[in-house]
């Protein structure tokens, strides 16, 4: 099942902490993270990749981005 994390309005390291927390709990599958700054987008994708997750897509969402990450 897909999990959605809304990290809008939060500054780093919060979006990364929330993402890593969900990665730890999910183990695998797909997670969507919504962020509203480019810094958060970079940090979240960097953190996900460091955990062996792949970044599937990054779409504009409002003023920010929706990042889809997944691991099989």
């Amino acid at each position, binding site marked *: 099942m897909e999990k959605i994390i809304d990290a809008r309005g939060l500054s780093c390291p919060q979006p990364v902490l929330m993402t890593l927390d969900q990665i730890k709990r999910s183990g695998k599958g797909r997670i969507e993270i919504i962020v509203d700054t*480019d810094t958060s987008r970079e940090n979240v994708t960097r953190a996900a990749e460091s955990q062996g997750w792949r970044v599937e897509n990054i779409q504009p969402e409002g003023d920010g981005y929706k990042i889809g990450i997944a691991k099989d």
Partner: protein
Amino acid sequence: MSQIKSFFSTRWGIVSVGAFIGVFAALLQKLGNPGNMGICVACMERDIAGAVGLHRAAVVQYMRPEIIGFVIGSLVAAYLFKEYRPRAGSAPIVRFILGIFAMIGALVFLGCPWRAILRLAGGDGNAILGIGGLVAGIWIGVLFLKGGYNLGRTTRTYPSVGWLLPLVMVGFLILMFIFPQIPDSESSGILFYSIKGPGAMHAPLFISLIVGLGVGFLAQRSRFCTMGAFRDLILFRQAHLFKGVLALLVFAFGTNLVLKQFNPGFTGQPISHSMHVWNFAGMLVAGLAFTLAGGCPGRQLFLTGEGDGDAAVFVMGMIVGAAFSHNFGLAGSPAGVGPYGIAAVLVGLLVCLFIGFTMMQKMV
């Protein structure tokens, strides 16, 4: 544009920005800035507080154009790369108080994290204590972050909200042109200038401004942050930002060697004292305050340029903190810690711990 955009988020992007800052900070010293203070966000904001008369410490009064450049350079970069995001409203009063004590702690040691690294690059052994304290403070802050410490979400706001502090900076620059420095005079119109001491030492205005603009631009692109460097290393075992700090150290050291500015030792170092415990403790409070506020003093200026109104409040807190530091005799000097400096460090630690312990909430 997108290639430039992605370059700065790579390893070589952050390393080249750290190198740029290291080289130009050392060069600014050669061109007139005080020893091991080519760039020091805390010291320079303290000098600005003096220039507008918030404190009247005669030796540290100068409207530092570097700080003005940092904010405006970041603003330009944010607009150019479509990253300007006006936002505010995440516990501003907490950020203001954290800014005050961050400055008080930094001035006990005599430098922000940037200057701590530049002092090390210039051979000042006392910097080791300061950097040790900084890391200890960040480590405590990380414990709070792991426990759910969070200042809450910002909200989007009018673009003009994000413009306010950059406009204040432009106003400061205009004041410098209206009331330029007069040789051997302590004031010019409404601005104060130092005629001796560190405040009297500065590179030519336009060089300072241009270097400041360049650093602001590059640091906005690369998210350069000295606190984040250690925080990410402790919290995530991630060394991305740390490579930038390391590059700053190495390149400032190399430039100092070339310019014959490297003088190893503990005593007689420029604008420095050797009260090891308080060098450590001062920076511990500062490091904790930076971590709770989400950025080192430099990063807060660059965030301000991106439209972050809360970072702007932290900056104002630091400037006010500098005024308290000098009015109350808290700041260090080459003679040692100020008469009430030790008490201020202890109060600062208690305030930061109070903020950390009472503002923890899992997943806001």
